């Protein structure tokens, strides 16, 4: 742990921030740099990059990087009329300084102008609460650029990219064999494969080393410090201001409010299980789309009987995960996809929704092979190959280094009955209700998955795969992207926060993370979460300086 400022209970603090992840890290860095005193409350520990390992058993099977290892219980049901049970994939995120940015794959796609105004462009969609964002791409663009330069993104512009005000700060990472094959497929079919923008250093940048191409990005922490997680990009700068304390292993139980309906701070359990209070002039929640919703729902009072900032009833509603579908292929020569970053090329030709397809939805298609050898040996081969014996062993040799996926990353529609709520029957170690996820894919989301799997199959064939196979297209029962549960909007009756991330109902409460999303984008949300956080920090700074908090 770094030497950091420590605030005593009686010290005045400007902001308490719940969560130190993709959004919380940016907010902590920006607000402390602007001269405010900031305390960040983080549920998990503070690790150092040197602690991260390539241990596939621990990381991928025992899920030590996820909340599941610490609080395994979550419940799931398809609809509110069903009993919820302890099953489903769960909502997966990391409890540690840096949050899920520690283990993300670091795909840093910007949203496109259409993402912010799809309701106006396409019209309403039955069974959904599709809405425009209260901000535009043009308003967010300067903050995307801030993420590029301050967090650290490598890439190269492509012809149909949304406008950017500055080039990428770093050139692309090396192209992988899967990227070369995606380029080949795209060229044959008349599409364009472009460089995948990645929050990974392609050269030494900002005092951190370049990527060592170890191949362990997704689910793993980066021991090189080359992956631009909040842990290594934002948090050290926040601490260096001398105005930021990260309080680790501390779990917030509620946001406290006073008789005037203002937030006064938070209550939390410290690492010894003692209840503590941290008062602050303003409270910022950046705890992810699951935790943020739960904290608001738990922070009830006589003035806020249905949860804090929930007069619209939309806290916890509209959860979106991003759909996906893929095709796997085997090639004649080795690809060795276990080396290098997750993806090096992506096809964005199907990004926009197109009414001629007969459903709402769009996405990007990249090339990747997310298998360590354990996972591949257990269930990575096509189903018709043997699962044991000499032929099986030979198949592992023939397929592991020669295979990859074309994977689509897709929209999820905002549906009011897809929710995170407080489970009435199960409690976590603190006695808080565990998450209950209620989720059914909108029919258009399922159609999109099937349609995109046809595209990935065509592309795999065009790439020259000697063997092509598809997994079944499955409905969602959990996931990593936790979006939409405290949506932004101009109308307090239909949204939780305003265009500046201020809660409509509580003037000194700000909420900024994946929960702010109005629509899901196309599968890579972190770039937008951080752009929103940079923008929110600027507005919060302005409000604080003009005594409007």
């Amino acid at each position, binding site marked *: 742990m770094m030497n950091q400022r420590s605030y005593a209970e009686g010290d005045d603090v400007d902001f308490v921030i719940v969560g130190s992840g993709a959004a919380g890290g940016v907010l902590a860095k920006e607000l402390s740099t602007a001269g405010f005193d900031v305390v960040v409350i983080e549920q998990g520990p503070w690790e150092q990059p040197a602690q991260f390992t390539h241990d596939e058993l621990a990381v991928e099977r025992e899920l030590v990087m996820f909340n599941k290892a610490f609080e395994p219980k979550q419940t799931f049901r398809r609809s509110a009329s069903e009993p919820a049970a302890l099953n489903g994939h769960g909502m997966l995120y990391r409890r540690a300084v840096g949050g899920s940015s520690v283990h993300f794959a670091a795909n840093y796609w910007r949203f496109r102008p259409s993402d912010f105004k799809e309701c106006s462009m396409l019209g309403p969609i039955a069974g959904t609460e599709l809405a425009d964002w209260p901000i535009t791409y043009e308003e967010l663009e300067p903050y995307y650029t801030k993420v590029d330069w301050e967090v650290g993104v490598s890439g190269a512009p492509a012809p149909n990219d949304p406008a950017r005000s500055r080039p990428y700060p770093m050139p692309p990472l*090396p192209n992988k064999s899967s990227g070369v094959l995606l380029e080949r497929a795209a060229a044959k079919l008349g599409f364009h494969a472009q460089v995948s923008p990645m929050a990974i250093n392609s050269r030494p940048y900002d005092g951190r080393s370049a990527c060592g191409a170890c191949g362990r990005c997704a689910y793993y922490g980066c021991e090189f410090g080359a992956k631009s997680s909040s842990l290594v990009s934002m948090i050290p700068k926040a601490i260096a201001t001398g105005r930021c304390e990260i309080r680790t292993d501390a779990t917030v139980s509620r946001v406290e409010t006073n008789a005037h309906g203002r937030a006064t701070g938070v209550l939390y359990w410290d690492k010894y299980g003692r209840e503590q209070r941290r008062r602050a002039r303003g409270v910022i929640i950046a705890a992810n789309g699951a935790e943020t919703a739960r904290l608001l729902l738990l922070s009830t009072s006589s003035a806020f009987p249905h949860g804090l900032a929930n007069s619209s009833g939309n806290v916890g509603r509209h959860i979106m995960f991003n759909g996906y579908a893929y095709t796997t292929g085997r090639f004649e020569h080795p690809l060795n996809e276990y080396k290098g970053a997750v993806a090096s090329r992506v096809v964005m030709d199907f990004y926009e929704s197109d009414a001629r397809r007969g459903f709402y939805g769009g996405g990007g298609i990249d090339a990747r092979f997310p298998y360590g050898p354990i996972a591949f040996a257990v269930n990575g081969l096509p189903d018709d190959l043997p699962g044991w014996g*000499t032929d*099986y062993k030979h198949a592992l040799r023939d397929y592991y280094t020669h295979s990859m996926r074309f994977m689509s990353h897709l929209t999820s529609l905002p549906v009011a009955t897809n929710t995170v709520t407080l489970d009435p029957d199960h409690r976590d170690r603190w006695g808080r209700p565990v998450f209950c996820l209620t989720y059914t894919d909108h029919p258009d989301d399922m159609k999109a998955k099937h349609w995109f799997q046809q595209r990935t199959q065509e592309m795999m064939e065009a790439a020259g795969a000697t063997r092509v196979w598809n997994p079944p297209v499955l409905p969602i029962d959990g996931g990593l992207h936790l979006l939409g549960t405290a949506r932004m909007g101009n109308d307090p009756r239909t949204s939780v926060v305003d265009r500046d991330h201020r809660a409509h109902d509580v003037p000194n409460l700000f909420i900024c993370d994946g929960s702010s999303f109005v629509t899901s984008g196309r599968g890579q949300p972190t770039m937008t979460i951080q752009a929103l956080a940079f923008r929110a920090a600027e507005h919060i700074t302005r409000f604080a300086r003009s005594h409007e908090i």
Partner: protein
Amino acid sequence: MLAGCARETTHFERLSPAEARTMRAFAAQILPSEPGSPGADEAGAVYFVDRALGEPFFADVVPVVRAGLAQLDARAAHAGALHGFASLSDADQREIMQKVEGGPFFAAARTLVLIGTFADPSHGGNRDAVGMRIVGMEHRPSYATPYGWYDAKTDAERATLA
């Protein structure tokens, strides 16, 4: 580090000597040893399984594995084996494997063998990086370009053009 010594160990923490013999034979059926190409037995998968049976994470599978190993031996005895599943011929072992293939024991024990073969050696298996050799991985903490055949070819073509 001590893999070479540990392999000679005949002492197991959780598996009885009979269970360990049967488990080794089962592992060798999952990923057989071939001339010049070691399998799950050389990887020491059984040592991982022995350790895993004491780990809370694998607690659910312990009774399944124990019962399944006993059943392999019972089936072997029925087929005339005097010293359990391991003493059967390869063909007879495979016949029994086919009979139990769809059951819960097979799935659980197979997964343990595969983890033992491919997991980080600190878990007790994957000795001499046998797992990496089986799938054809270079076992290094980081890698240089080119990564694979197709990007190497593109780089070479680009160099020729330049």
